[in-house]
Structures are given as structure tokens and as C-alpha cells.
């Protein structure tokens, strides 16, 4: 994976650009100036202790959290706000919804719609947000469910599926909107250990197919093997970033070393 990234064309496109992003919740500043870039096709993995702000930052990328200052660009478009003169004004709900439709998100607790079957979960957004005809949506959905290995569970309700299966359906559901970018918020943290592998396998497959991904995770094996770049965050700042070999084998910062020694 890392060999491939160095052979990338020079005209690599910035899929994500964050500029000096700050976020506070009340008096507590959770993000203290995050700046980073994700190129098209890259998989960036964010690691760090809990409370470091990594999940908050991820949720800022699709405006599930509103940033307090700074800018976030996804595929060249300013997210959540528009420029009016020299001020930033929050976008209308419609515009934000459309922006979010291009970004897929997978949650720690799956958040499948329990009143819909797996298939219905996957076709829901394409039909009601993109106005796709039902037959086409179903065809696409079956293809995606096949891809994540759950075609036979298309008519099952979420409560009948294991955690790993639910998460894979959630991935299919996010992919159904044809996103340019996929965000993974500790996608395997709520899974029993024996189910983690099947989800990581799907994520890896996506990365190999060239999806741009930002992954917040504690799975260091996955990070080491699949990431093009690792970002280590702590206390709301990016402490260090670089390719996996550097971060895991020769971390430059003491805090990085301390964190890694605790979990590896």
C-alpha cells in the first residue's frame, strides 16, 4: 500500500483539506488548530487516546459537529459554511444535506434503521435523497450487499444480525450513496473480537479499490497495513503524522512513543 502511494501521479487531488480547525464545547476547547490534508485515494488513519478530539474532528468533516473556527474543504468545497464577504455564514440545511450525501460515514454503534430490513436500509437514502427508482436502488443494494458478503441477509432485520454483519450492512448503506469520501468512526470498537476481522476486511477492500478514507481506530494492525498515512492526535492537536513505518517504528515525539507503548 505504501509503495503504491509513492507512485501516485503528481496531480494528486486534495479530497480533504482542514485549515486550522478549532472546536469548543462550551468552555472546553476540544480541537486546537487542526490542519491536515487527505489526497484522493488515500487512507488516513487517526489514532490517539480518548479525549484527543479525533472523533470530534471526524464528525466536523461532514458537519455533524459545527466547527468554531477554521475551514474544512471536501473535494474543493467549503463544508458547512459559505463565504460572504470576509465572513463565514452557515449554509442552509438543504445545502449541508447535499454535502453530506457525498460523504459516507460508518459509526461505532452501526446505527442501522431497526424498522427496515438490511436491503431496505441500503436503498432508503438512494430512493429518498437521490430519488433513484426503486428497482435500480434495489439492484445496486444487492450488489453492495454481495460485496460485503451479506447478500443472503438482504431481508433480515438488523436485530437478527450479529454486530459484524450489522456493521457491514452499515458500510453498504453508506456506499449506496456513491460517496467520494468515507469516514469511519471507530467502526470496530463495539464489536466482539472475533467479528472485527470481517469488518476490517471490507474496509481494506475499499481502501484497495481506491476509496478515500479517514479512519479513526484503535486497530493498530489495520493502521499499519492499510494506512497511507497515520495521524496521531492528543489533547486536540496533531502531535505527529507520517507513513506507518515512521509512526510505528521511529516515532519522533515523546507523546507518540508513550501512547504506542501503552497499546502495542
Amino acid at each position: 500500500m505504501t509503495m503504491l502511494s509513492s507512485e501516485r501521479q503528481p496531480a494528486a487531488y486534495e479530497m480533504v483539506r482542514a485549515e486550522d480547525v478549532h472546536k469548543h464545547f462550551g468552555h472546553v476547547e476540544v480541537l486546537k488548530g487542526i490542519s491536515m490534508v487527505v489526497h484522493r485515494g488515500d487512507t488516513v488513519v487517526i489514532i490517539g487516546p480518548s479525549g484527543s478530539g479525533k472523533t470530534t474532528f471526524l464528525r466536523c468533516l461532514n458537519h455533524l459537529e459545527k466547527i468554531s473556527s477554521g475551514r474544512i474543504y471536501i473535494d474543493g468545497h467549503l463544508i458547512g459554511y459559505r463565504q460572504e464577504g470576509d465572513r463565514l455564514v452557515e449554509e442552509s440545511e438543504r445545502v449541508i444535506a447535499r454535502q453530506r450525501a457525498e460523504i459516507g460515514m460508518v459509526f461505532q454503534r452501526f446505527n442501522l434503521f431497526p424498522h427496515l430490513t438490511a436491503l431496505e436500509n441500503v436503498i432508503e437514502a438512494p430512493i429518498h435523497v437521490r430519488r433513484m427508482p426503486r428497482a435500480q436502488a434495489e439492484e445496486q443494494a444487492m450488489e453492495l450487499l454481495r460485496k460485503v458478503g451479506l447478500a443472503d441477509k438482504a431481508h433480515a432485520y438488523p436485530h437478527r444480525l450479529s454486530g459484524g454483519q450489522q456493521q457491514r450492512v452499515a458500510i453498504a448503506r453508506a456506499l449506496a450513496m456513491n460517496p467520494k469520501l468515507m469516514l469511519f468512526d471507530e467502526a470496530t470498537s463495539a464489536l466482539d473480537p472475533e467479528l472485527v476481522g470481517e469488518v476490517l476486511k471490507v474496509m481494506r477492500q475499499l481502501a484497495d479499490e481506491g476509496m478515500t478514507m479517514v479512519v479513526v481506530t484503535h486497530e493498530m494492525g489495520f493502521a499499519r497495513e492499510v494506512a497511507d498515512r497515520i495521524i496521531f492526535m492528543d489533547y486536540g492537536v496533531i502531535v505527529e503524522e507520517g507513513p506507518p513505518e515512521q509512526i510505528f517504528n521511529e516515532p519522533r515525539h515523546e507523546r507518540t512513543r508513550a501512547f504506542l507503548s501503552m497499546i502495542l
Partner: protein
Amino acid sequence: MFDWSQVWKYLFSGVMLQGAWVTLWISVVSQALGVILGTLLAIMRISRNPILNLPARFYIWIFRGSPLLVQLLILYEGLPQLRIPLLTFTALEAAILGLSLNEAAYMAEIVRAGILSVDPGQMEAAKSLGMTYSLAMRRIILPQAARVVVPPLGNEFNNMLKSSSLVSFLGVVELTRTAELYGAPTFSVLELLIAATFWYLIMTTIWGYVQNLIERNLDVDRKQSAPFSGGWLQRFTGFGARRAPKVPVPAAGSLTGTH
């Protein structure tokens, strides 16, 4: 003196049945309108936008904080004083309007509780897929809230059947008014009121059974069912809904590792 034969005479008489019917249909209509308006109010109440939030809270405060009877009287006897044609109602109009508006305030709190009971992750997932708030509400949140709303809604209807008796004050000829109308001139006030009581009991008791059936159908305690999909009727009653096939719950100690 008391005369049982009077009770029997009027119990199944045309006028009594008519009165019971009026009680029933204005209760159903008012409850339905109350649910619709109440849902709208609940959504407004949840909103962080003060333009929506404050009027909703004000409405709920007024209609829950003052007596239903007074509200009915204002609609029927008070408003005409303003001489505004649009605000002058017949007894029946005032009755249904008053019952609905009042009920909406109570339903608002019930529906709000239902909406809040839905995991916040659901709205987040919906939003992350590009749904607007209202689309997510309609397709994802409210259908799930419905399950929580059903038991208290059943109780509200039980109350509605009884509080509908207040519209007798407006002259609407429902069950209570019927009893009064026919009791006085025949000197059998008690007998007629007993007959009316009988009909109220029949209606609330039958509703109690129906409510029980619906709640068991919906498996409100979620002992072993999937949520219901289908239209709103299916969602609220469980009848005619598509439901996942039941897998027998394995006995303790016999769980295999398959999933």
C-alpha cells in the same frame, strides 16, 4: 323511586344508541386530530429554534393548564362575543375543536417523549446519508417513536371517551346529554344516567381489550419481535404489517456459535 324497567327500556333504545354513537365518533375524530396536531407540536417543541419552540411551549402550557370545560365554553359561548364569523362555531364544531386542541397539548408531550426515546444515533445516521431533518423525522424517527407512543395513546383515548361527556354542556347530543334530555321529563334521571354509565363502561372496556390486543401484537415490551414496517396503521396496531419471521429463542445452554 327507582325503576329498573326504565333502565332496560332506555338502555337499548334508539336514542341511547344514537347518543353512544355520537360519543364514539367525536372521540375518535378528536383523538385523531389531537394526534396529528400533537405530533406537529412535539416537533416544534423539540426544535432549538425559538420561533418554533416558544409558541409550542405556550400552546401546551395554556391547554394543559386550564380546564377542558372552560376551553369548550370559550369556543362555543365566549368567542361569538367577538362577532368574528370565522370564530363562531356550532356546538358540534366547538366540541370537536375543543377536544382536539386540548388533546393535542397532551399528545405533544407523549409524542415528544416517543421521539426522544429514539436513539440519537438514528438521526445522525440519517443526516450522514444526506437526509434533511424533516425527511429523517418522517422516514426514520417517527416510525420508531410510534411504538413508544402506542400505550399512552391508548390511555388517552380511554380518557377521551369519558371527557367527551363535557360537550354535553354545549348541547351536543351525545350519551350524557341524551340521559339528561330523557331523564328529567320522565322522572327517571337516575335510571337514564345508569344507562349512560353502562354505555361508557361498555366502550371503555371494549377499548381496553382492543388496546391490550394491540400492545401484545406490537410486543411493546419487545420480548421477541422485530419492529413493524408497513404503513402507519400497521405501525400503530401491528395488524397487516410485514414482520420478520420469528426465530425460536434458544433454551439456556443450547446456544451454538453460528450467526
